[in-house]
């Protein structure tokens, strides 16, 4: 099922989110966690990039959205998962690349 990529940095603080998109092949999943969840918010260039990466599935860690008060600002097309969902994503994919 391809790789699971995780991104934990804000797309405004670092280029990690962009780098990850350059490596996420069709059929892979990008999971946004920790400060990476800011890439899942509406009205941002990150949200546009997510929309354009049509072959890639995007997910975001709900607890991290909640912690940062972002639940009302979630962009379209991004699945919210909890830690159990995170575990499932790891199990479902062939391997994990944590973009640090």
């Amino acid at each position, binding site marked *: 099922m391809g790789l699971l990529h995780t991104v934990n940095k804000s797309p405004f603080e670092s280029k990690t989110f962009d780098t990850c998109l350059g490596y996420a092949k069709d059929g892979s999943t990008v999971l946004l966690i920790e*400060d990476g969840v800011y890439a899942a918010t509406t009205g941002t260039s990150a949200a546009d990039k997510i929309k354009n990466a049509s072959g890639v599935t995007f997910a975001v860690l709900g607890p991290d959205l909640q912690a940062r008060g972002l639940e009302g600002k979630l962009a379209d097309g991004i699945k919210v998962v909890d830690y159990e969902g995170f575990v499932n994503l790891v199990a479902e994919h062939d391997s994990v690349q944590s973009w640090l």
Partner: protein
Amino acid sequence: MKFSIQVNEGPYQHQSADTAYQFAKAALAAGHEIFRVFFYHDGVNNATKLAVPPQDDRDIPKLWSELAKENDLDLVVCIAAAQRRGMMDVDEAKRQGFEDNNLKEGFRISGLGQLIEAGIESDRLVVFGA
């Protein structure tokens, strides 16, 4: 499935130490096995027995120690990273000529080979860091 986890950052400094713990807890709750949790870089500081965080906040070393006890987990602190940062168990402290040691119950010190072995023996290895 058999998971292993690598923790690269110290407690409180970076959320990855918390995320790793939450992931481990969720994996166990879902019935998976955790082969090993390997603490590297500043991650070795999660093993301190001397942390006294504020009463109204989580005690990260204690959380790991308790999770390990309840689930018979193998929490390994990398010896090379530990030596650099002054994390010593009883044996290592004696070997280095120190009177004091600071490794919390539930953690053990071992070599980097344990991380590679974890990758070989597990179905998935997940890295948490900065």
